[in-house]
C-alpha cells in the first residue's frame, strides 16, 4: 500500500515528475494526431481506390485487350462468389471541344454504367445522375445525344477551400473524341486510310472519385461506342479489363484465388482458338495489386511516419529514463529509509515501476484527451487559421482532399496508449534496478552531508 501512496505522492508533489508526465502527454498527443490524420488519409485513399476498381480485375495493360471476354463474364456471373462484373475498354484519346482548336490528352473508359456501378462505386461518383446510373450517358439537355461522363477536375475548378461550384445542370458541351484503333496484333487498324476514329459526345455528367489523377484525366464513354472507337469491336470483340465485385462474405484473397482458377480454366478452353495468344497476357489481380503503384507511395509515407514516431517513442523512453534517474537520485535517501524499515529490493523496484506506470497512464490519458479534442476541432482550427492567416495544411485548390481526416481509430488509440505506458515502464527499469543496488547506509550518510 505504501508503494501506491508514495508513487502517487512522487507524481503529484515533485515538479520533476511533471516533466515526465508532460513529456508522455505531449508525445501521445502528437502521435495520436499524426497517426490519425495519416492513417485517415491512407485509409481514405485506399477506400477510394477500392471503390474505383472493385475487388478484383482481370485484364491486360496492353491497349490491344483480349477477346472472348463475354464468355468469361458469363462464367463469372454464374459464380456464387461474384456480385458484379463489368467489362471495360480502357485507352487513351484526344478530346477537343467542338468548334475549338484545343486538344487534350485523356484516358477513356468504355463502360456499361449499370454493370460498372454493380462492380465498382461508379454510380456514387456521379453528380447529376447519382440516383440513376443507367442514365449517366443521357445528357439532361437532350437525352437522344450520346453522352460522356467527365472527371470532375476536367470540368470544374475547386476554390481555395476545395469546394466546387456545381451548375444546376451540365452545360451543353460537345466533345470530339479521337482514338487510334488497334488491331488484335497491335497495328493501327485503319493504316492507309483514316487512322483515327473520331466521335462526338456530349457532356452528360461528372464523376468525382476523389482520386486526383482519375478526376483530372478520365472520360467515361458508353461501352459499345468506346469499343468501336478503339477498334476492339471486330472481328472478335475485345476489352482491356473486367472489373469484379465479390459478395460481401467473400474474402479478397479467397475471391481472387477463385477468379484466378476460373480464368486458368477458361483460358485453357480457348487455347488454340483465334487470338488465344492475347489471353496469355491476361492477369488476375486484386484491387490492391492493380493500384499498387499509387497506393505504395502513400503506404511508404505512412511507414516512414510510423518509423519516425518509433524514434519519438524511443526519445520519450529516454526522457522518462532521465527523469526517473534524476528522481531516484534525489530519492536515494528515501530508498535508504525504506530499506532501514525492512522494505525489500523487489518492493523498491515495484515502487518506482508503479510511479512510472502512473506517469505513463496519466500522461497518456491527458495526451489522448488532448489529441482527441484537437482532432475533433482540427478542421475548425484549420478554417480559422485559413481565415486569419491564409494557412492551409493542404492547398485544396491542388489536392483532392476535403476535410482533414479526424476519425479516431480505437485500435490505434489502444496501441498508442499501451506503447506509452510500456515505454514509461521500460524507462523505469534501469533506474529502479540501480535503486535496489544502493547501499542504505551510504545513502543515509550521503544525505547527512
Amino acid at each position, binding site marked *: *500500500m505504501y508503494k501506491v501512496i508514495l508513487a502517487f505522492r512522487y507524481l503529484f508533489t515533485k515538479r520533476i515528475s511533471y516533466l515526465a508526465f508532460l513529456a508522455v502527454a505531449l508525445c501521445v498527443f502528437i502521435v495520436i494526431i499524426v497517426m490519425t490524420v495519416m492513417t485517415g488519409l491512407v485509409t481514405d485513399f485506399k477506400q477510394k481506390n477500392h471503390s474505383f476498381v472493385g475487388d478484383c480485375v482481370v485484364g491486360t495493360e496492353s491497349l490491344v485487350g483480349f477477346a472472348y471476354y463475354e464468355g468469361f463474364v458469363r462464367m463469372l456471373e454464374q459464380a456464387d462468389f461474384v456480385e458484379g462484373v463489368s467489362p471495360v475498354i480502357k485507352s487513351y484519346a484526344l478530346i477537343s471541344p467542338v468548334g475549338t482548336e484545343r486538344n487534350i490528352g485523356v484516358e477513356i473508359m468504355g463502360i456499361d454504367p449499370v454493370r460498372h456501378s454493380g462492380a465498382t462505386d461508379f454510380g456514387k461518383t456521379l453528380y447529376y445522375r447519382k440516383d440513376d446510373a443507367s442514365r449517366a450517358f443521357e445528357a439532361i439537355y437532350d437525352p437522344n445525344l450520346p453522352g460522356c461522363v467527365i472527371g470532375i477536375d476536367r470540368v470544374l475548378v475547386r476554390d481555395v477551400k476545395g469546394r466546387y461550384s456545381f451548375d444546376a445542370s451540365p452545360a451543353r458541351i460537345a466533345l470530339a473524341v479521337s482514338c487510334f484503333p488497334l488491331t488484335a496484333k497491335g497495328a493501327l487498324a485503319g493504316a492507309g486510310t483514316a487512322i483515327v476514329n473520331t466521335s462526338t459526345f456530349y457532356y452528360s455528367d461528372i464523376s468525382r472519385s476523389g482520386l486526383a489523377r482519375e478526376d483530372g484525366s478520365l472520360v467515361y464513354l458508353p461501352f459499345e461506342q468506346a469499343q468501336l472507337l478503339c477498334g476492339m469491336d471486330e472481328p472478335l470483340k475485345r476489352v482491356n479489363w473486367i472489373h469484379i465485385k465479390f459478395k460481401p462474405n467473400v474474402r479478397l484473397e479467397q475471391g481472387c484465388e477463385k477468379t484466378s482458377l476460373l480464368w486458368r480454366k477458361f483460358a485453357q478452353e480457348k487455347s488454340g482458338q483465334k487470338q488465344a495468344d492475347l489471353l496469355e497476357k491476361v492477369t488476375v489481380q486484386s484491387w490492391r495489386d492493380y493500384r499498387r503503384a499509387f497506393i505504395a507511395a502513400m503506404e511508404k509515407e505512412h511507414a516512414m511516419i510510423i518509423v519516425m514516431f518509433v524514434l519519438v517513442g524511443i526519445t520519450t523512453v529516454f526522457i522518462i529514463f532521465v527523469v526517473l534517474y534524476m528522481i531516484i537520485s534525489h530519492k536515494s535517501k*528515501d530508498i535508504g529509509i525504506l530499506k*532501514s524499515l525492512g522494505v525489500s529490493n523487489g518492493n523498491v523496484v515495484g515502487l518506482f515501476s508503479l510511479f512510472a506506470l502512473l506517469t505513463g497512464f496519466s500522461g497518456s490519458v491527458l495526451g489522448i484527451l488532448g489529441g482527441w479534442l484537437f482532432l475533433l476541432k482540427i478542421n475548425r482550427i484549420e478554417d480559422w487559421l485559413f481565415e486569419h492567416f491564409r494557412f492551409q495544411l493542404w492547398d485544396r485548390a491542388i489536392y483532392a482532399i476535403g476535410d482533414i481526416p479526424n476519425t479516431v481509430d480505437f485500435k490505434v488509440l489502444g496501441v498508442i496508449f499501451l506503447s506509452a505506458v510500456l515505454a514509461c515502464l521500460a524507462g523505469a527499469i534501469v533506474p529502479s534496478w540501480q535503486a535496489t543496488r544502493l547501499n542504505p547506509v551510504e545513502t543515509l550518510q550521503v*544525505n547527512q552531508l
Partner: protein
Amino acid sequence: MNDSDFILKAEEIYKSYRLGAAEVSVLRGVDLGVKKGEFLAIVGASGSGKSTLLHILGALDRPNKGNVKFEGRDLSHHTGRELNKFRNKIVGFVFQFYHLLDELSVLENVFLPAMASRSILGWLACRRCAKKRARELLAELGLSDRANHKPYQLSGGERQRVAIGRALMNEPKLLLADEPTGNLDSATGNGILEVFEKLNRAGQTIVMVTHDERIARKASRIITLADGKIA
C-alpha cells in the same frame, strides 16, 4: 555470562572501507553484548566507528568478519527476506537526521513500518488498528495535534519524536539510536532522552550511539569505542 543472557551479541566484528587505493579499518575486532531491557550507550570520538557498529548491529550493513547474533541466531545466516523482516519487526532505527519521508504526513510516517510489512489486502485488514497504534504513539510523544502535518512543517525535536514513534510502531525488541540528539539543542535533546528513559523503564532495550558523554550518562551502561575497539 552465557549467550542466552544477551538479546544481541557481536563477536570479533571487523569492518573496513575502501577509500580510493587505501583500505580504512573502522572496526577491529569489536565484541559486544546487549542484555534484554538494557539501555546501552556507545561513546566515541567522531570517526571511531560508532555508527558503523550500530548499522551492523541492526543488519543495515554487513561486517567483513565476525558475527552478530540476535537471540542466539547468527544474522549472517539470515536470507535477504529474513533480514528485511528483522529490520522491519525486530529493530527500530532512530537517526540523527530523523530521515522521515517528506511526501508522507506525520501519521503516515509513523505507521509506515506496519504498512511496509503487509500486502495491500493485509494492510486493508489491519489499517484501523495500525492507525490507532500510530495515534497512540503520537499521543505519548506529545504530537497528537501534528498527525496531519508534513515533516518539514515540524521543529527538529518534533521530527525526532516522530522518528521515535516510527521506530516503535512494530514494537521492536531493540531500539537503535544513532546520535538521536546530535541535531537538537540541549533542551530539546533532553526531552528526547527523557522519552528514551521512559521507554527503557517500560522494558525497551535501547542501544544509543553518541559522542557526548553527558548524554551517555542517561544510559544504564556505557562503553567506549576507540581505534575500532571497545576500550
